[in-house]
């Protein structure tokens, strides 16, 4: 059995392929087998979600086949992140006003 992967390893593999990305990797169960990665990079501009995910899978290559059991991906451009953050602030505001 190959050794379980760590969040740091996943992050560094993605960073090698996308050096300008901002990445957060969470171990969602604490067991080293279910991860969630949020990746924000200008390299995603103009790319479909399928192609963005393929870029990440490409960066992880063999680890994806052998060492990563489950990895949820959220990919955003810096602009999409701003929009997301803005809409969450709006949600919080409207919840307060209710």
């Amino acid at each position: 059995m190959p050794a379980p992967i760590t969040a740091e390893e996943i992050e560094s593999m993605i960073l090698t392929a996308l050096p300008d990305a901002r990445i957060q990797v969470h171990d969602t169960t604490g067991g080293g087998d279910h991860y969630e990665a949020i990746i924000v990079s200008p390299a995603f501009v103009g790319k479909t979600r399928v192609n963005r995910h393929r870029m990440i899978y490409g960066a992880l290559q063999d680890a994806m086949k052998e060492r990563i059991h489950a990895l949820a991906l959220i990919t955003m451009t810096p602009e999409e992140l701003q929009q997301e953050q803005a809409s969450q602030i709006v949600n919080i505001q409207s919840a307060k006003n209710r």
Partner: protein
Amino acid sequence: MADAIQAKIDEQVKKNKIILYMKGTPSFPMCGFSAATIQVLDSYNVAYESVNVLDDPAIREGIKRYSNWPTVPQLYINGEFVGGCDIVREMHAKGELEPLILAAQG
């Protein structure tokens, strides 16, 4: 042999307007990601075909090659690869999945 599997998958994908390759079945999903995808699909109240990749190792490996996508579940609508669980959920949340499903129904 491998080509026969690719041809078989291609036929399934083209023959069914909505088809999900998953682990387990819609009533008994065997993985959280497959279960979450089923939940989204069922919210539209549409008929869809599903293939349990755990039943056939050749399909399980073949589907990854077919779409150049390393994970299951995989959703196809109108012969096109839509995405895996994260993408399906995101499209659902943003209202982008419904038009695809409606188009497949029409």
